[in-house]
């Protein structure tokens, strides 16, 4: 894995539904905002009733959560990642109402993780989270900036998660690198609620019956 992974257009290809059941298992470890060492909450990253599925923030191109924020605490980086400035957030939860994917959570209580004496949490590395503000998956920009994979992609032993760059048209799950557009086409990848015009940048690949065959 080389180079920066998060360019303006960015993508997570997720082996969803069929293999997604595995996602719940690693999500707690991989949950970046809680630090890998912390047996943190799995929050809403992965949950379900009939099946578990990973649901990161979709980093919408046209993000509704961003538009409704009264204090501009939610913003988009040049690379397209939607971040939350928890120093500015007033905790009105308007963005939670507006996000069509339920990708945001509110820190009702003191979140896990201790305050580093010299390091203040930033939007790019919001650890620990601030109580009374909202948080969400931020595609681990603090890792991708250094050319590392997001924590969830790194941690998924099954290689079910891919991250890539829509402009350079590559994606990787840490084991194999694929041609993004082709990969999406060949696997019938789909996005949630495309009709809303939010432009979600996370694709899901539905299972092809593997679960039932075995």
């Amino acid at each position: 894995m080389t180079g920066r992974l998060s360019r303006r257009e960015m993508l997570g290809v997720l082996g969803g539904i069929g293999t997604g059941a595995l996602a719940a298992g690693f999500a707690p470890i991989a949950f970046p905002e809680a630090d890998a060492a912390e047996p943190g909450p799995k929050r809403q990253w992965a949950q379900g009733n009939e099946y578990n599925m990973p649901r990161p923030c979709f980093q919408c191109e046209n993000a509704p959560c961003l538009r409704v924020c009264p204090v501009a605490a939610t913003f988009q980086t040049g690379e397209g990642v939607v971040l939350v400035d928890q120093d500015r957030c007033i905790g009105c939860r308007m963005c939670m109402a507006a996000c069509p994917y339920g990708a945001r959570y509110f820190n009702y209580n003191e979140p896990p993780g201790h305050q580093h004496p010299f390091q203040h949490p930033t939007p790019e590395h919001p650890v620990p989270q601030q109580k009374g503000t909202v948080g969400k998956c931020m595609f681990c920009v603090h890792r991708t900036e250094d050319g590392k994979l997001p924590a969830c992609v790194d941690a998924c032993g099954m290689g079910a998660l891919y991250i890539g760059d829509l402009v350079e048209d590559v994606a990787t799950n840490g084991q194999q690198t694929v041609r993004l557009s082709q990969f999406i086409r060949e696997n019938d990848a789909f996005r949630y609620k495309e009709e809303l015009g939010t432009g979600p940048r996370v694709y899901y690949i539905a299972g092809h019956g593997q679960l039932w065959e075995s």
Partner: protein
Amino acid sequence: MDSRTHTRYVERAMWPIGRGDRKFWIVVVVLSAMVAAGFYAYIYQLQRGLWVTGLNQKVSWGFYIINCVFFIGISYGGAMTSAILRLTNAKWRAPLTRLAEATAVAALLVGAVYPIIDLGRPDRALHLLLYPQVGSPIVWDLVAVSTYLVASFVFLYLPLIPDLAMCRDTLGPSAGRVRRTIYRVLALGWRGEPRQERSLARGIGIMAVLIIPLAVSVHSVLAWLFAVTARGGWHSTIFAPLFVLAAMLSGVAAVILVVAALRKVYGLQEFITAKHFRYLSYLLIALGVGYLYFMVSEYLTEAYVLERSTTPVLEAIFEGVYAPAFWVFTVGGLVLPLVVAALPGRFAIARACTGSALIIGGMWLKRFLIVVPGMAEPVMPWDWGRYAPTWVEVTITIGSAAAIPLLLIVFFRFFPAMSVHEMEEVEGAELRRTRMVPAFAGGGDE
């Protein structure tokens, strides 16, 4: 109105001023205790954080947002009632306008606090002024509600000026220096000169016209808080007018209750009669039928198409977990009270009050049915969210509801309960200044 009735009118309007008998203090203490309990619950929440509420990751808006919409709605109805009566120049309005305007301000003061109570970081509320993002409905809310707050204060204050002058002139030295200074300062040198009368009439006229679009905008903006999201049951074009109508409906109902209660307590039966209640009931019925129509229009169009995002919400409301609340609201909180209020014949006052109380309860339930199912509906293929308020939310709600009557009786302890000046204007009666002996000087009672 002959001069004797006139004297009695002034007397009754001034009667609550300075009155402090046992009953008064008992009521004040009981209401204050409820408000204090609400404060305690809020401080409890401030110290611990929002986890002490029943809010959770799926249902992240609950009682506080419901109450915000509910109380601001009541306020809106009070202001509208008064403005409509003034603009249509209804002759029977004189004893009612003050009560309606005061209700509007009291309810608004309570409703406007709720967004702050709901914040995760109330200590950063100032960020709204420092970094406003004009695209956000919350910023629209802030602008609309604060403008409306100022306007409703002015709307209460302007017609009060001549009455303040009356207090200044007729209440003897026993009223105490502080109080008389307050009257003098607030009366702004009112002498009842034709020039002053003209500017006052113009001022009140402008405010009556202004308050309507202002109040409409406040409630539309509150509706857009929900309607601009993509959630099922929220993303509806009819939301703004629906909210406006709901607000007027609950507001008129609240005015009826306030008028009925204070009429009894302050002995205004002579001036506020069954006729007034009948007229207010007409207003209530017209608004209620209008609301029913809007609601049917909303649900019918949504339920007919059965879009993927709205269907689960509608199912939950019509026949699922929220069905009891919905049917109680529709039957007991909307249709039944309208029928009760519309019936011809006797007991106009009792019927108007029963209908109003039911409508107020019903409108609160309706707000619940808007906020909670829309939130609890799974936006992704998951379970439904659940929401049950904790004692903190319930206590704050009760405390804030008690704050409205408390504010009103404290207000009327200092200011006339009925507008004397307006009555004189409507009746064309001569301005007569009778020297009043205030209650706290041992007089005033018959």
